[in-house]
């Protein structure tokens, strides 16, 4: 139904919907994940988790566990090295003030959430390990706990970490103009609200797990991770060993969504093998552990005050307070809240902005990176408030956005990011046309029966990679094979998103191979072998790898043509590589194939050469990546249910490297967004701090029965800073669906709901409050 998408410039290997390089193996079950590589004699490590939300372990009775046949060793929080370490999957910073907070040990005596790690049982088999864990007797000295972010900031609240008074991990501000002065203007309409998003979990199909063993005195860890090179550093730090002592291998993984952009149990696993003489040991998280004892998305509460000029519909001033619930350990910490805080005045630039963000420890599971890195939360609050502003001054919400949203040419002073095109307006216009927004906006919203239809819009701000906040680097190595194909490897990881296929297409393009099938991407990263890269996160892979792929391809090409000079007697600058052949540019004459060249170079008895290239590119750019979501809903008032009947995302992520994979990225993001908006939420018992629904039955991940057909389209404005004209798409699709759903429900029912998920419980309460549900029998009951 969508117009055929153009190729990127005059390139022809990128911009095509090629079949994934790993498609057949994945579809037939041949792909090897960490468990498929497991040494047969690996011991099982099972973790004893705390059953209180806050307190100290006073003793652990190991005797019963140690008596169980098959149990090899029990290790507790009293045995671990006293080396606090940070887990966030951030590039290391040479500046100590930018290094992540080191606030946890391998096993913790001071337990800070229900599910903290206090001991491990190492056993010959899984049953004995589980029996051992159940047989451990842990005594605690209990302390009061706090789950709510603002309550945790109060004086006298339970303290989680001594170095952080009032549990405040970090507080930052963002001030533009003079807010106090700006709001004095006559005739401004004030729109104020509290908005809140829940604690949710990534729910990747493959739970995190890893195994570790020792070889020649070094530790090898094979892990389900997004960030092998960073994990090497964290394992070294946590164990107090030189980083060169550690080798991390990352095979295929079953998704990560940011949870695996953190050191999870790799350090503990690495330590355990050192405690059993280097024997292989395995840690495999159960789903229940994944929900609680890995990482979650930050629950964030926003207070927004927006002052709107009624005459021209412009925002005069905005004040935003962000309260981010960090949970028990710092992990990615304030980066998440800060990203949102700083996005507000870019998304909707205003003359006066006063922003504050606090990231606060509470006795919940540690929050870390999750697809969107704070932007699904911020987008929900931001565009819910923007919708309320439009309604408050009687303007169509899309028109209000057109007036206030970031204009073409906008440059952010901090990052240097520039909005080179009128991206937001182009995306909204395309989406509105495809979904027939204007007609439906008029037609819906007036239903009076039980079923009410609505259409809503949400937009989002995003960028690409982490420059200038952190290091942005990419390295790769290419090797010309004897059959004229090229083997390529880099530190940016395949985590299910299709990165390897994009790399193959870009490499084929940059060198001049006949097909992306002539590129063999080494999917598995091994920190002993693979050029250093920081891993999969920040929607950086395709953009960042593009720089080093282009640079390394140029080096390889130079070497190929230099050797070809000896054989063909042509000068390198008269030659090029096209479709796997060396040609003379002037007359396009094919001089020789790459295969002939490779064979000649390798087996030449006078001048033999193994042609390879390797390089690192330090990226000092970032790129905006914007878009929007349109949603249609039907609300069944009496049944308290909102059903998404249509969802459409429109993105400008630059030139598409592989349109089919791009669509798949969007579909996955929309699915995650629907769950975030309507059903997902990790719930905690207020009395004990215990998570109540840490399983896939009680945690309502949306199923495809909860989705309509997922639709998307793209505006392909080439990104000027990228060698391939491309930019981020991994995280952006999940930022705006939830708020579009919220706004569609508002359109359908007139009820503005400011906290998600908007599940039947919430609809029952809110529709009752609004008078749309009235259980008359309840009145009689009261009499």
């Amino acid at each position, binding site marked *: 139904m969508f117009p055929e998408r153009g190729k990127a410039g005059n390139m022809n290997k990128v911009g095509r919907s090629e079949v994934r390089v790993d498609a057949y193996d994945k579809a037939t079950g041949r792909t090897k994940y960490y468990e498929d590589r497991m040494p047969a004699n690996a011991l099982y490590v099972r973790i004893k988790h705390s059953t209180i939300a806050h307190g100290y372990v006073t003793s652990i009775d190991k005797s019963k566990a140690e008596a169980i046949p098959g149990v090899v060793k029990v290790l507790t929080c009293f045995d671990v090295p006293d080396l606090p370490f940070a887990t966030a999957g951030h590039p290391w910073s040479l500046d100590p003030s930018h290094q992540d907070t080191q606030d946890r040990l391998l096993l913790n005596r001071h337990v800070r959430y229900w599910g903290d790690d206090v001991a491990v049982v190492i056993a010959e*088999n899984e049953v004995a390990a*589980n029996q051992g864990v159940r047989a451990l007797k842990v005594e605690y000295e209990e302390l009061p706990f706090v789950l709510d972010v603002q309550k945790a900031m109060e004086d006298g609240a339970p303290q989680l970490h001594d170095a952080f008074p009032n549990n405040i991990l970090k507080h930052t501000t963002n001030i533009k103009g003079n807010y106090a002065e700006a709001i004095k203007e006559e005739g401004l309409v004030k729109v104020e609200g509290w908005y809140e998003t829940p604690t949710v979990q990534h729910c990747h199909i493959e739970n995190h797990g890893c195994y570790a063993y020792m070889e020649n005195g070094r530790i090898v860890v094979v892990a389900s991770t997004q960030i092998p090179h960073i994990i090497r550093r964290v394992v070294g730090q946590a164990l107090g060993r030189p980083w060169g002592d550690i080798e991390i291998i990352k095979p295929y993984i079953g998704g990560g969504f940011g949870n695996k952009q953190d050191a999870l149990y790799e350090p503990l696993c690495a330590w355990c093998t050192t405690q059993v003489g280097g024997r292989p040991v395995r840690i495999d998280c159960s789903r229940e552990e994944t929900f609680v004892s890995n990482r979650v998305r930050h629950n964030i509460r926003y207070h927004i005050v927006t002052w709107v000029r009624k005459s021209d519909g412009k925002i005069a001033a905005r004040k935003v307070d962000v309260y981010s619930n960090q949970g028990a350990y710092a992990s990615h910490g304030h980066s998440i809240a800060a990203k949102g805080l700083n996005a507000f005045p870019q998304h909707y630039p205003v003359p006066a902005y006063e922003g504050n963000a606090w990231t606060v420890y509470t006795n919940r599971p540690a929050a870390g990176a999750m697809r969107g890195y704070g932007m699904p939360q911020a987008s929900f609050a931001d565009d819910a408030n923007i919708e309320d502003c439009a309604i408050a001054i009687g303007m169509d919400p899309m028109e209000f956005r057109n007036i206030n949203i970031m204009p073409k040419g906008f440059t952010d002073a901090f990052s240097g990011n520039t909005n080179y095109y009128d991206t937001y307006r182009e995306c909204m216009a395309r989406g509105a046309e495809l979904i027939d927004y204007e007609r439906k906006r008029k037609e819906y919203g007036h239903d009076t029966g039980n079923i009410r239809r609505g259409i809503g819009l949400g937009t989002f701000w995003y960028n690409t990679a982490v420059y200038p906040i952190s290091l942005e680097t990419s390295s790769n190595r290419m090797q010309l094979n004897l059959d004229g194909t090229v083997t390529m490897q880099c530190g940016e990881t395949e985590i299910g998103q299709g990165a390897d296929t994009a790399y193959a297409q870009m490499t084929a393009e940059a060198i001049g191979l006949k097909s992306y099938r002539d590129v063999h991407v080494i999917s598995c990263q091994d920190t002993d072998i693979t050029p250093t890269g920081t891993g999969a996160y920040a929607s950086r892979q395709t953009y960042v790898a593009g720089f080093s792929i282009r640079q390394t391809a140029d080096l390889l090409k130079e070497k190929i043509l230099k050797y070809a000079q000896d054989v063909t007697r042509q000068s390198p600058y008269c030659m090029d590589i096209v479709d796997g052949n060396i040609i003379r540019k002037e007359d396009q004459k094919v001089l020789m194939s790459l295969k002939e060249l490779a064979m000649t170079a390798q087996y030449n008895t006078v001048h033999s050469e193994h042609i390879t290239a390797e390089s690192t590119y330090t990226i000092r750019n970032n790129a905006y990546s914007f878009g929007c979501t349109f949603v249609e809903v039907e609300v069944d008032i009496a049944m308290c249910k909102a059903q998404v009947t249509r969802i459409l995302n429109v993105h400008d992520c630059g030139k598409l490297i592989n349109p089919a994979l791009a669509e798949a990225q969007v579909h996955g993001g929309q699915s995650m967004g629907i769950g975030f908006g309507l059903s997902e939420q990790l719930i905690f018992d207020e009395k004990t701090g215990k998570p109540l*629904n840490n399983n896939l*039955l009680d945690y309502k991940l949306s199923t495809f029965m909860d989705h309509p057909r997922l639709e998307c389209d793209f505006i392909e404005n080439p990104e000027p800073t990228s060698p391939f004209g491309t930019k981020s798409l991994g995280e952006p699709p999940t930022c705006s669906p939830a708020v579009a759903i919220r706004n569609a429900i508002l359109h359908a029912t007139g009820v503005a709901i400011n906290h998600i998920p908007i599940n*039947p*419980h919430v609809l*029952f309460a809110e529709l009752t409050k609004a008078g749309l549900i009235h259980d008359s029998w309840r009145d009689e009951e009261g009499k």
Partner: protein
Amino acid sequence: MYDMKALYEAESVEHAIQLRLEHPEAQIIAGGSDVLVQMREGKRAGKELISIYMIDAMRGVSIDEEENIRIGSLTSFSHITHDPIIQKYINVLGEAVDQVGSPQIRNIGTIGGNTCNGVTSADSASTLHAWEAIVELTGKNGVRRLPIKDFYIKAGTVDIRVDEGEIQTAILIPKSSYENTFGHYIKYGMRNAMEIASLGCSVNVRLSEDKQTIDRCRIAYGVAGPVPMRCPSAEAVANGVMPTEAMIEEFSLAALKDINPRDSWRASKAFRQHIAVEMAKRALVESIHRAGGEIK
């Protein structure tokens, strides 16, 4: 790897009874979609199991000599949904069990296991209550039959005499119950698949020959109390009267008198009551339509 002490494989009903008498502590396992999950959670860790899964005589749907519909206890949910006898006489049961979990669970899960668990949320249970099913138990002293409402004793406990080696062998629907009867089941969940019912409501009606009057109306809920339950007050409103909108309203409100849903973190009592009224209404309207009647 499951933490089980021993697994005994029964080859026939008689063998199963004998094994049960020999190993009174053992847990019966059929499809395993509940037992193995509980074992994994540690609740039944270290137990002995008696598997009855290979007893084909306990599998399938038929009409017996008394014209009862006989559903072998090992019949899977997907089998029930696609069975022609079920589709012809009690289609609502097939629809109800088609809402259990996922396709994989429906292929492995059995109606015997669904009822022997004694849980109020079982998708088959409210329909079996509303159709006054008879539970057949076989033990060392022969066959014992009892109405399903008596089979359920309390949450998680059903009337199976382990000391007599009893196992549930079939579920019967008497002809008087299914003849000219049409029903509808509504499962309320927080999502549209892979769900456990927040509330289940099964209604069925038999209309008079001229389809003007409701001869008999039966309604049962799951999750409206500790065990599945009928609603006599609501049924009294509908029995013998002409279906009108006012009557349906009265019927749905009367159901409130009979049910006793609880407050839990999964759903509040007020919410479950609200939904119960709406479900009664919708299930009755659909049942009447399926029976060929109209609402006046």
